[in-house]
């Protein structure tokens, strides 16, 4: 049945599916995992770094991009589609600042990106964008925000979410471990993001990239050393927790 209704984007199937949009969501699953966490005074974005070819310049393979000084996003899916969306969003951020003399709110830019994506699901001859995005930042009121958009053009606010390959596993981990305690401080929120990624990332710290935004501060990308030290701390804590457990059992 899908065969006759999945070629053109503008055609509904008899049971109400837009197959091209659903297939675009499959393209998102082919990208590596990205996780976003909204803490009390911090927002964290963590991504699984794709292994870079030997001769490739690592700086040009980035999954976390700043849209403005106070907003940044991570994506999963088709790289080229992401570049287009990011460029449009960046232009919109500046245009808004010049027109209204205020920086964009996180919700505004998310809505802009989502509207852009939806337009491509209802246009003749175009295909949907094959990316999902996690958009984080602080508004002027100082409240941290995390939004997720998907190829269909919907967007929702989240406390913590994951996109890309193995997103389900990471989301289940976050559902179990996102508590008031684990986001109480900035360092706890960062640790939670790294722990969530370590559930699915194969070779540990060296394949993780992390970015944070603190209130009234610009985007900060963690260096490989800082991530490695965080991973080492997490593993130490894990060992200690296991030792305690085995002591209790004995």
């Amino acid at each position, binding site marked *: 049945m899908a065969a006759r209704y999945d070629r053109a984007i503008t055609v509904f199937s008899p049971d109400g599916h837009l197959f091209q949009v659903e297939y675009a969501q499959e393209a998102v*699953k082919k990208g590596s995992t990205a996780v976003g966490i909204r803490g009390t005074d911090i927002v964290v974005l963590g991504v699984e770094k794709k292994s870079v070819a030997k001769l490739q310049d690592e700086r040009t393979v980035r999954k976390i991009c700043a849209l403005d000084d106070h907003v940044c996003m991570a994506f999963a899916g088709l790289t080229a589609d992401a570049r287009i969306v990011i460029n449009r969003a960046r232009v919109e951020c500046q245009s808004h600042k010049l027109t209204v003399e205020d920086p964009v709110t996180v919700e505004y830019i998310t809505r802009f990106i989502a509207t852009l994506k939806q337009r491509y699901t209802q246009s003749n001859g175009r295909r949907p964008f094959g990316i999902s995005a996690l958009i984080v930042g602080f508004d002027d009121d100082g409240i941290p925000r995390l939004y997720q958009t998907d190829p269909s053009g919907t967007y929702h606010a989240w406390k913590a979410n994951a996109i890309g390959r193995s997103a389900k596993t990471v989301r289940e981990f976050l559902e179990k471990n996102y508590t008031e305690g684990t986001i109480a401080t900035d360092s706890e929120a960062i640790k939670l993001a790294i722990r969530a990624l370590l559930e699915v990332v194969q070779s540990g710290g060296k394949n993780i990239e992390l970015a944070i935004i603190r209130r009234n501060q610009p985007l900060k990308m963690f260096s490989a050393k800082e991530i490695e030290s965080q991973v080492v701390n997490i593993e130490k804590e894990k060992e200690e927790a296991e030792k305690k457990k085995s002591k209790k059992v004995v």
Partner: protein
Amino acid sequence: MAATFFGEVVKTRSRAVTEEDDDDEEDAWTQDNYEDREVRRELEKKREVEVLQTQTNVSLEIPLLEQYPCSKFIIAIGHNAVAFLSSFVMNSGAWEEVGSTKLWNEWCRTAETTTLSPADAFCVFYRLKSEPAVFGSSPKRGLQVTLLTSRHVTDYRTPESSGSLSSPFLKALKTQSFQDAAHCTLLEQPNIVHDLPAAVLSYCQVWKIPAILYLCYTDIMKLDLVTVEAFKPILCSKSFRGLVKNASLSPEALTKLVTTNEIQSNIYT
């Protein structure tokens, strides 16, 4: 000569028949037929599947299983199943290569099978050197066949929503004579098995050979660690007992395989 609707010229047989003409025309036709037959025969020969013995590089005249009778025959089809066998089963114990097959059909891009290097073999046969006793019994009696393969999860038909399926997952399908329990749930209707595994299972069913297929439904068709590890539950089965000695070496061997086979692609990030 006649022109078809699309303008191509087709040679048609003339309907004007005279007695003398008949013989000439028939000769012409049989000549064409002879050439056609020659071409067809050559193609048939090219398409023949040969099993080459590794040591001698000579084609085996008798079936492989008669040359090397065994009681356990394990076939892995597809990247993930092969990676599972290589890293979990074949990394312990000494396995020797006993034969390989190459085949050709019109869809292959190369012209000749003889020029294909050994690395291009489509199927390689291995035998466990350290336990020839395992492979002592006569063929077809006491023979048990295990098949491993993977398929994309979108081929799996179920009344549940596909979002709730946690791929990768294993399903099994066995022949009537296979008495042991499968190590995962059986493949439900209306799902069917395709291609080589289906052919092997059908053959085993007809000849009453106990056989079981473990089919892994996954959402990543290329070589992938998570999919390969989904095959792990079958290591406890009877067919694999005694074959897996050093389970600790497996993750290393597997990571090595995955990294060497990874094709660099920048389309998805």
